[in-house]
């Protein structure tokens, strides 16, 4: 074999991570330039390098573009109703401590329609991981504004600019006592995968906000028409600050105002399951 032959790009049919994705469903439905596949890649790498047996990982997702992740990952995966994956995951985790339950879903699903379940799961500190993919918009339904759309951003239901304040999610989650809070973008793949790996280890509610590209949805209304425009945005405006003041990490997407990333919170907090053990003791079940 000659030297040049060996190093030509090699055209193949399968990737080495195909054991963890439902390859019979690829290529997936996400648009060109959408980074949801990158989120999937980072999650796959995180579970592959975690010490938890692969068969004990469970993914629950809700409705929306991100909700489709459950259908592409080759684990026990549940695609439930809009806004409800956290409640589903709580029920599952409470009865089966051996499972590592991860919710991967979108901003509209988890904090808008599912906001109530979200805050209460954090308050309880149920041992689940929640990877919230924030694309600033409702993509699947046709690019309507949501609770994470920055002020002034246009969408199909805010043609004059969004008139509402968006959530500052890391602040919200940290204020409710979560043991792990991080934010990364899909450009920061290795940091994101490391944060996911850490989230899998953390006991209690581990939260990562993943800022993602959405060129066909959010981008088409806001001068970010290509996936690469988002990559440039992330490269130019992201600042990594693990000790950031969380009151100041709200995302505006205005020029000159940074998107602050980092593993903001990593602390030990007794979980719901620890406290439930006390109940079992008082009820006489556990000694």
């Amino acid at each position, binding site marked *: 074999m000659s030297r040049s032959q060996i190093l030509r790009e090699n*055209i193949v049919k399968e990737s080495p991570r195909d054991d963890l994705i439902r390859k019979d469903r690829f290529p997936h439905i996400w*648009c060109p*330039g959408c980074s949801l596949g990158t989120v999937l890649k980072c999650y796959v790498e995180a579970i592959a390098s975690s010490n938890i047996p692969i068969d004990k990982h469970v993914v629950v997702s809700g409705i929306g573009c991100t909700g489709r992740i459950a259908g592409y990952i080759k684990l026990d995966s549940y695609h439930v109703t809009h806004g409800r994956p956290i409640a589903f995951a709580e029920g599952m985790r409470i009865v089966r401590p051996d499972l590592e339950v991860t919710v991967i879903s979108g901003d509209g699903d988890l904090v808008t329609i599912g906001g109530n379940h979200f805050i209460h799961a954090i308050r309880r500190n149920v041992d689940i991981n929640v990877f919230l993919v924030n694309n600033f918009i409702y993509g699947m339904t046709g690019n309507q504004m949501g609770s994470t759309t920055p002020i002034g951003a246009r969408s199909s239901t805010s043609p004059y600019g969004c008139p509402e304040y968006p959530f500052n999610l890391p602040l919200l989650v940290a204020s409710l006592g979560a043991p792990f809070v991080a934010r990364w973008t*899909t*450009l920061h793949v290795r940091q994101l*995968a490391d944060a996911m790996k850490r989230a899998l280890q953390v006991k209690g509610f581990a939260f990562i906000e993943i800022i993602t590209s959405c060129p066909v949805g959010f981008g088409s209304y806001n001068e970010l028409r290509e*996936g690469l425009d988002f990559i440039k945005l992330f490269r130019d405006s992201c600042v990594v600050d693990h000790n950031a003041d969380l009151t100041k990490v709200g995302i505006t997407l205005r020029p000159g105002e940074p998107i602050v990333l980092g593993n903001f919170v990593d602390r030990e907090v007794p979980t719901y399951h620890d406290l439930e053990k006390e109940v079992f003791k008082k009820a006489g079940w556990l000694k």
Partner: protein
Amino acid sequence: MTLKIVREPINKHIQKIPLGWIHIIPERCKECGFCIELCPKDVLIVGNERNIKGYRWPKIADGKAYDCIACKMCEWICPEFAIFVKEVERGEVV
């Protein structure tokens, strides 16, 4: 007198620059351009051939076949699981 600190690995003499061998699954590519944009060595360019959905998958730029350092950024960033890099020994190909 100023003290100039030069950070240099103490095992620099045995360090090798890794060499990567790029693998592509053309049917999965959606031509988002992430791998091309984010390659630190500019190894990849837009290809000429189109897959069944009409997307042009990336190819290695002329003369860049040995420039891949196996950082795997393209593999990580690819949303389609359509590209991956295997690290190979330089000795294997010379």
